[in-house]
């Protein structure tokens, strides 16, 4: 067995939490159950990985098999990587697409063949692996080399393609220069015409899927201010010190929040970025800057769970309810990178996001 393959397998096993190693090796299926029985999974990881490498040696593992183990690891722990969302489209020329009648049969074998051929025609030194999962997800692992060097197994790109949708999730690789080639190969293999990057990025692959596949609980985007309802409520037994207005306001905030964010859990995003090129407007009596040029800003929000965090701002008294549509539209618009310019027209307070 190649020394580099042995080392790669060893390092991959070391990444896995100790309690998960056996299950993952079983999923991998490269080592037989009998072989797995011989490993003591209670020893320290260093030793477990050595034992695994030893057995792989006996089975003469090559890089392709090692790569499969890597895919399995990344499929179970996708949140260690940052994922960007891409959308493929066909041009209008394709009539059946427009009418939406078409439900193309997805030929996986054909896809794989075309993909490999496209990549390899441009770059001979690549390692390509595929693995199919439930819900029509095709995982592709690519290790990149150069015309003169073998593929670097530690510099990999991952692609997750849901064949019944035009969406592709790509794990941003270190070698960004290979991205155009990768995109090309995807388009060709899937019979689309082109591909563009959506402004949507996150560590949480599942949340990205939730957003683009609209799997989260939807909410009403437009907020219609409700007329104040007169309520004749008898004061609660005893405590007349409860201030009615505050309670009304609290309830209003909760209600508005629910309308705007929906009932269910929010998709998990870590950041949102806004490039502002709007005009600075001040209180006229402050007598300050009154420029005709945009006031250029870059605003970045970050949180372990951004949308939940934003949702809690109004109840905490730090924001108005409803929160700005610039923030609440994130799942709807399926983007977390925005460029905001002033909208010229009737409503100086409203913004356009291109």
């Amino acid at each position, binding site marked *: 067995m190649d020394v580099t393959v042995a080392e790669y397998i060893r390092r991959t096993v070391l990444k896995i939490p100790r309690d998960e190693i056996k299950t993952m090796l079983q999923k991998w299926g490269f080592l037989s159950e009998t072989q797995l029985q011989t490993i003591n999974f209670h020893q320290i990881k260093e030793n477990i990985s050595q034992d695994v490498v030893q057995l792989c040696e006996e089975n003469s593992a090559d890089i392709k098999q090692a790569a499969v183990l890597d895919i399995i690891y990344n499929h179970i722990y996708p949140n260690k990587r940052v994922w960007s969302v891409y959308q493929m489209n066909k041009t209008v020329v394709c009539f059946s697409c427009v009418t939406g009648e078409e439900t193309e049969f997805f030929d996986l074998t054909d896809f794989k063949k075309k993909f490999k051929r496209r990549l390899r025609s441009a770059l001979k030194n690549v390692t390509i692996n595929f693995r199919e999962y439930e819900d029509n997800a095709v995982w592709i692992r690519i290790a990149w080399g150069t015309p003169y060097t073998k593929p670097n197994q530690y510099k990999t790109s991952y692609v997750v393609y849901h064949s019944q949708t035009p969406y592709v999730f790509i794990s941003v690789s270190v070698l960004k220069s290979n991205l155009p080639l990768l995109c090309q190969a995807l388009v060709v293999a899937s019979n689309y015409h082109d591909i563009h990057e959506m402004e949507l990025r996150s560590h949480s692959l599942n949340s990205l899927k939730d957003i683009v596949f609209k799997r989260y609980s939807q909410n009403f985007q437009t907020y219609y201010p409700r007329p104040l309802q007169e309520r004749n409520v008898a004061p609660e037994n005893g405590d007349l010190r409860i201030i009615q207005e505050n309670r009304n306001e609290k309830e209003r905030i909760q209600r508005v929040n629910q309308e705007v964010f929906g009932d269910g859990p929010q998709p998990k995003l870590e950041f949102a970025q806004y490039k502002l090129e709007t005009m600075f407007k001040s209180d006229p009596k402050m007598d*300050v800057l009154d*420029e005709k040029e945009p006031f250029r800003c870059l*605003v970045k929000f970050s949180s372990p769970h*951004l949308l939940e965090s934003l949702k809690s701002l109004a109840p905490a008294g730090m924001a108005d309810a409803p929160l700005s549509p610039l923030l609440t539209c994130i799942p709807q618009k399926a983007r977390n990178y925005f460029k905001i310019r002033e909208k010229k027209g009737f409503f100086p307070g409203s913004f356009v996001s291109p």
Partner: protein
Amino acid sequence: ARRGAAPGLAPAMESADGAVRTLPSIGRLSRGPTFGRAHGRFGLSPSGRLLPPAPRSQENADPQRTAFLLRKQWTLYSVTPLYRFSDARLRDYARLLSAFIAAEKQKGLAVEVGVELDIKVSVSSLPDLKGSDQDQAAILVQLSSRSAASSKNSEEKLIWSGWFCCVSGDDLSENVPEDFTCLPLFLANGGESYTSIVGSWFQKTFDCCFRRLAISPLNLSWMAAMWTGCKVDKTASAMELVFSVPCLPQPLNISYAIHPEDAKALWDTVQKTPGEITQEEVDVFMDCLYSHFHRHFKIHLSATKLVKVSTAIASAHCDGIIKFLQSQYLTGVLMLLTELAISQIQ
């Protein structure tokens, strides 16, 4: 000579969470005159502040000599006046501190586990770093390591730096009895354990007290306003404010960066009195930025905590961490920090 440090008090340094400590030199203070609350030019919440004048020593100063202070992260401390410190004895101090460090290592309070390091101490003066003639010149302490195994020829690696300074600290130095030296600001870069050892030695030797110097959101706003107004030659970096909202179920961080030209244009229309900045002007400046933000996001930044300010001149963090980015404004920033340190001492 060792003065009477109160027995039983650990020489450990003030921790970052700002735990209040009793001054070991409490006996010292009772002898001298009490330090009255000096009326500083940059007080805690003044109605007005004079704009820092162009650094007096700028013409003579060689920016190369202080270049090594730039672009490093310095942790800030306030230091009470040093008793019987002499800048003629710097070599002696280096020797004594070196022996102290060696002794601490022997005791098992070694800083780097498993590494045999031979630590060399140097204590020197930085005459360029002062504001007025009354200021004591800055004192620089550096620890370098040389692996014990190799000979004298092996390279020395700088592992820790700390410097004391006083820039326009007249309000303190004017009120201090003769035996005392005022160097109220201390800046450290390097391992915390080294900071602790060096600080302990100074505390023991000169009967002074170190305390972490936190920077309040109010003072951070001042820095944001003042530094935005500074003229910078080259293409400046953005003026960035970082806010933190920790008490939510999911904490939130907001970075609000403004193009430096636009930020300066705004400040220039706000700042009306030449040569002076008022609290009101700082408030208006910040309110403008907050309301521009609110207009877009409906979030009240004033309800959040301002934790960091970054401009082309310098960046400052509320935990008391500073980074100097422009040598021509080094003294100006130090003047403000000296004032904050003096406020904390008094």
